[in-house]
């Protein structure tokens, strides 16, 4: 192995380490950018969804956040004695109401992706009592 080869490998390893350290922040940034680009959006089920095909980086970032969300939903659901899906759906009401900006996409049920207009999103019926 030449010296320069070793150096570049070391640099690579350092970069990987740096990436691992800042992974959550990166995932957050990647998802924010993808949401702004209309590739990723909030779903009524409480998770992020992907519209069409996206880069592997975006897909990984979405998966990472969804896994963390599910962990949080599971935790809360156990505390409150409800199903994970219920906890996720109630959070979905909130994310649709507060985490989708105008021009960003969102999806309710198994419906098509929609673009948020100037007004508030027409939430599913069961969300009706969820104050915004």
């Amino acid at each position: 192995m030449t010296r320069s080869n070793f150096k570049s490998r070391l640099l690579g390893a350092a970069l990987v380490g740096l990436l691992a350290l800042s992974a959550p922040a990166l995932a957050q940034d990647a998802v924010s950018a993808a949401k702004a680009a209309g590739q990723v959006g909030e779903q009524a089920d409480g998770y992020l969804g992907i519209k069409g095909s996206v880069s592997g980086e975006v897909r990984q970032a979405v998966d990472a956040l969804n896994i963390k969300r599910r962990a949080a939903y599971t935790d809360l659901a156990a505390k409150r004695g409800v199903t994970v899906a219920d906890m996720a759906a109630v959070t979905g009401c909130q994310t649709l109401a507060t985490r989708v900006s105008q021009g960003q996409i969102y999806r309710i049920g198994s419906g098509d992706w929609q673009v948020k207009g100037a007004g508030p999103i027409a939430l599913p019926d069961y969300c009706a009592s969820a104050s915004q």
Partner: protein
Amino acid sequence: MRYRPWLGPIKRLGATALLAGMVSGCIQVRAPDKPIEINLNVKIQQEVVVRLQQDAKDLIQNNPELFPK
């Protein structure tokens, strides 16, 4: 009890008759003509939403990194 060998077949006959009665008394279930619609939408009780919404709000507020704008 006295040994009554003729009682065995009678008991068996009774059991068979009872079983036959049960079978004929079953409700006939027919498959519906229309295809069954599977609803993929979220189904949730209003009461559950009310009970959990503060938790949901707190979750988002306390973990903004999981819910980027």
